[in-house]
Each structure stands twice: as structure tokens, then as C-alpha cells.
């Protein structure tokens, strides 16, 4: 069925978008390297292929006038998912161009930001490409040709999105999401119990701050009540004067 195909393709696009964002975050930092740039290039090519495929499929489904109302609502929902994904992808591509230009790799004195991330991003890219291992080419034009390609790809994506808006008449605000608030907690995957929470030092501790406020509450109550009484008294006096003015 068209719907299932669509959903699988959208899931794939979603995965690639998430991985691409993860890779862009590492740009400019100490985990940046030629490999990372190549991974970015491959991931976004894959993202574009998926995007084109999704777009053709969804456009053909939405243009079909013989579908039922529920089907149409479902396709519109998928359409909104698709366009949100594309929005994120476009922004990330533009940002990767900007950061890539700011932090070129092939210069003698390169100052990458020491962010504390030193591991490689190979596994993330492999996940995006759905392969076991990534193979890299010894490409040396990472600063010039790659960025040029990136620019042209960004224009392609922007054009595609404009075309999409023109051709398909979907009101995004009319779509109702299927997931309610807190739906992500009900998933059955093990992402929730990440072991990071045990040793991470940068977690905040909110419980400490609540105790200090208790002592001051008594004084505050007295002040508040006194102020209230004064204001009421003043208002009554003023009202009395006004009514007696005539």
C-alpha cells in the first residue's frame, strides 16, 4: 500500500536528518576532520535522494482526487512530517556551509574549537547510510569543491521546497498530530535508560534551592497583609470623597 511505503521512506528520511544534525554539531570542533566532511557530504546526498523519492510519492498520492477523506488527512499528516524534515535539513545544510567556510581544514594554522569531543562520528554516518562500515575516499578538495557542491545542493533543496509549496495545497495548521503530549515516554526502546545519567556531572540539582525560601515566608505574609489593608483603606476613603463631591 502506498501509505506503508510512504511511512518507511519518511522514517528513513527522519533518521538521516537526525544523523545529519548530529554531524553538523561536530563541525568546527576537535572532532572535525576530513572524514567528517566526507560523511556530511555522503549523508546529505542520501538525504536528497530520499527527499526526492518522498516528494514524488507524496505529491502523486495527494494529487489523486479519488482518495477518501481519512486517507487524505493521513497523507496531509505525512506531508507535514516531510516538510518539517526538509526544513530542518535545509537549515542544517546552510549552517554546515557557514561553519565549513569559517573552519577550513586545509590551512596550515587551523584552530578548531576544543570542545572536549574527540571521538569519531563514523558510526553515526554508518547509521545514516544504513551500512556496516564507512569507506572513505582520499578526497583532498574538502574546502573548495565540496563547499561548492554544497552550495548548489542547497539551492536545489530550496527550489524543491518552493515547488512543493506551489504544487501541493496542504494547510499545515489544519493537521492534527497523532501523538499526544508525553508520547515519547511510552516508547519501548531503551533510549530512556541511558547510562549517561548516572555519572554525568553537569546535571542540575533542583531540590536544593527549595528549602531556603521557607524562612522568609512568615515575614512576607505580614508585609503582604499590611499592604493589602492599607490599599483597601485608601480606596474606601477616595470613593467616599468622590461620592460626596457633588
Amino acid at each position, binding site marked *: 500500500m502506498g501509505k506503508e511505503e510512504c511511512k518507511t521512506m519518511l522514517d528513513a528520511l527522519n533518521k538521516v536528518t537526525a544523523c545529519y544534525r548530529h554531524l553538523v554539531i561536530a563541525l568546527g570542533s*576537535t572532532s572535525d576532520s576530513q572524514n567528517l566532511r566526507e560523511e556530511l557530504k555522503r549523508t546529505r546526498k542520501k538525504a536528497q535522494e530520499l527527499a526526492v523519492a518522498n516528494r514524488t510519492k507524496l505529491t502523486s498520492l495527494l494529487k489523486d482526487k479519488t482518495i477518501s477523506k481519512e486517507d487524505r488527512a493521513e497523507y496531509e499528516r505525512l506531508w507535514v512530517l516531510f516538510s518539517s524534515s526538509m526544513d530542518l535539513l535545509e537549515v542544517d545544510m546552510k549552517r554546515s556551509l557557514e561553519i565549513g567556510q569559517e573552519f577550513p581544514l586545509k590551512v596550515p594554522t587551523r584552530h578548531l574549537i576544543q570542545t572536549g569531543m574527540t571521538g569519531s562520528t563514523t558510526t553515526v554516518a554508518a547509521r545514516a547510510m544504513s551500512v556496516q562500515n564507512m569507506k572513505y575516499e582520499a578526497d583532498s578538495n574538502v574546502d573548495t569543491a565540496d563547499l561548492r557542491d554544497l552550495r548548489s545542493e542547497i539551492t536545489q533543496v530550496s527550489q524543491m521546497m518552493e515547488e512543493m509549496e506551489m504544487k501541493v495545497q496542504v494547510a499545515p495548521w489544519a493537521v492534527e*498530530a497523532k501523538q499526544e503530549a508525553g508520547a515519547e515516554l511510552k516508547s519501548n526502546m531503551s533510549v530512556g535508560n541511558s547510562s549517561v*545519567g548516572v555519572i554525568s556531572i553537569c546535571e*542540575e540539582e533542583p531540590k536544593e534551592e527549595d528549602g531556603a525560601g521557607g524562612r522568609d515566608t512568615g515575614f512576607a505574609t505580614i508585609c*503582604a497583609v499590611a499592604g493589602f489593608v492599607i490599599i483597601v483603606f485608601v*480606596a474606601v476613603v477616595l470613593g467616599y470623597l468622590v461620592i460626596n463631591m457633588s
Partner: protein
Amino acid sequence: MTINTLAKGGWHRDQMACFRKMEKVIVAMQDPDMGMKMRNQRLLITVIPHAMTGRDVINWLMQKYNMCEEEALHLGGMLVRYGYIYPLKEPRSLVLRADESPYRFQTPYFWTSTRWPATELDYAIYLAKKNIRKQGELMEYEKERYSVLHKRINHTWDFVVMQAREQLRASKQRRKADRIVLECQEQAYWLINRPPVSLTLSTFRIYFIAHFVCVCVCVCTFCLCLQIEFCRRALGRNRVKSSICLEGFVKYSEQYLSHDPIMQGCLPSNPWISDDTAHWTMNTEVVPIPSRLRVERWSFSFMELLNDAMGRREFMTYLEKEFSAENLCFWQACEDIRHGENSRIVEKVEEVYKNFLAPGAARWVNIDSKTMDKTLKGIQHPHRFVMDDAQMHIYFLMKKDSFPRYLKSDLYKNMLAKAIVPQEVKKSVFPFMRRQRHSSPSPAQAVAQASEEEGRA
């Protein structure tokens, strides 16, 4: 599709200069030789490199830019406040401490950028991720914002959930140290772009709101009392129907039509066009022979007569004949008090009393007893408007009694006959010296022509 015009528009915006400068400072700190001294951060099992103390930062700034400690503290504080450096021990307190507290650099993606401001969609994805990681244990303000966002961008909520899950799965692919750093980075970014509400407010909030409500209520009651008074007074006022108002207005316009220089043109000629000041010289205050239009105007209303100096004089002459000139003199004296100098009010009131109001005065005016009593009482404490009632009484007396008789009198009729109608200056022979009565075709003429044609047809 989200209404994400910000992201699209960012392509054309520029990064603010202050941020570009801060970025340069940060990049300069990365120099392997002259840059910041890096230490290692030791957690329970993992060791994460690239940490620095606050003291290191300040020393480096002082050395590199040759500034004093205070300035370095300030600059360092800005770097922390705008998210280029984030604290590791107390992530919520975004200040630079000049001691051993650890800091780390933020990755360029999460730098403050005017080109790429933080969007609601991103924040929603972050909150969803945090929700999953902490099994629903978000902070109060985060929970509120979560529900607000859920309502606001409800149409993309599926995407938010999907993306949050995928991003967490992607980050699971990294090793532990990197995952910790990623989390800290993202948390620092959102602490700056979506700062939490103040913590102490929760205890005082109730009292604050109660105070505010009370003040509002009191102010409202006061305003309402005033409004009631105002409405009560307004009910008692006279009202005139608009049809009657408009009739009066139409009558006025018809009456004054021939006197209007714009509608009717002025005789002998319009000084502004013909540069001939005859019109003005003929209509000065005191003229041996007034123009006809002027004399006609005296008959329109009593006020017109009194406002014209010549008219007043003529009227005074008439009243002297009738032996009621004291009325006009009294009225003039009262006008003088009303519009005169403040310092002379007392002496003027004294004079008026002596001449007009005192029993057995030389020019005693006839006022009814009630007004007289009120005026006499007011004279004890004289002020500008103390004679108002008496003056009004005399005014209406003259208006009802003397004025109609004056209009019917010989004096007025002679005046009218004597009044001149200046000749219209003819158009000059020479075409270059055209003197026109009308600067442009008057609308009255057009109307007159139209009505003539209608009459003929």
C-alpha cells in the same frame, strides 16, 4: 511545513558585530602555542579533555589584550553569558568565576547567532529528548513550556517525537565521553536561549498576584465611582436634536453667504490678487462711511452689532436718545473686568458698583432683586467673573428690548441708505493686467448657474 520564515530568512541576515568579535576571541584562544591552557576533567570513570578554569581564562585575557582584571572579568562574563564558554560545575549560573571552577568551549553550531536564532521546533525536540532521558522528570518551567509548545506547534508534534527518538539513537552511537559532552553542550545552549524563570518567584508569586489584584480592584472601584458621577451629570445636560442643529446651521450659512469673500468675492477687488488694498481700507474699524454689507450684518444678531466698534457706537447714540445708555455702559464695564488685567479687577469692581449698582447711583441699572443680591454678596470677594450674572441680565434686556427697536429706527435706516457699495474694479484692457474679482470660479456661481438652467428647463 512549519512557518519557519526565520530559518529561511537567516540566509540574508548578518551576524551581529559583537558576536563576530567574540568569535574571534574564542578562535584566538584555540591557538596551540599562544592559546588557552587546557586541563582534563575527571569524572568517575571517564576523563574528558579540554576543560579550563576561570582563573586561566582571566589570566589569558589579561595577557593577550593587555587589560586589567576587572575588564577581563567583564569580557569573560560576556563570553559566558552569550554561550561561547559554559560552566561545568553549576550550569545554571552563567557567570565567570575567577577561581578553579571548570569551563569548556561551546561548539560552533551552538554559538549565539543572529542569523540562526533558536526556533520553537528545536526547543520542542530538545524538551522531548530530555523527557525521554529523564523519564518525564522535567523541571516545572520546562513542563509548562512543553505543554505550551505542544499546543502551539501541534501539527508537527509527530515530527518532534520522531526526531527526538532518532536524535537520541544517533547519539547512542558515540562513546560515553562524547555523549556527556553533547548533553552538556545542548543543555548550556538552551539555558541561554530559553532561560528558566526566577526560582524565588514561586514562593512570593501568590502574594505578588494577590497584591496586584487588590490594587486593580481598588483602582477600578474608584474609576467606576467617577464614571457614575460623570454619567449622572451628563444626563442632566440639555440636548438638541441634530435636525434642529442642522437647520440652524443651514440658516446661518444662507445668511452669511453673501458676506463670505471666498464664496461671493470681495468688492472692490480681492487684495491678494489685485494688490489693491482698497477693501481693507474701506473696512477698518472706524470709517466715516461703512460699507453696506457691514451695516447689513449688524441686523443679523445683537452680538454682531456689539462686536463691531462702529456698530456699538451707533447703538450707543441710539440708546442715549432713548435714555437707556447706562445699560450699554454697564455691559462694557463688565466686559472690561472680564477681559482686563488681574491687578486692576478690585478697583474696577469698586467703580462699577459706585457708578451702576449702588442705590442712588448716577447711572443706576435695572436688575432684578435676586441677581442684585447675589452680585452684591459677590462684590465682597471680587474676582473676574463676579459681575457675570448681572451682565447677562442686562445683555438679554438690551437684546430683547432695545435692539429690535434700533433696527426699526430711523437712525439705522439712514445708516443703511448712506452705506456705500464699492464698485467692482473692471477688468483692465491690457491682457497682462487682469484684475479678477474671483480668483477661481466660485462654487456658488456654479450652483447658481445650474439652478438657472434648471429653472429654464
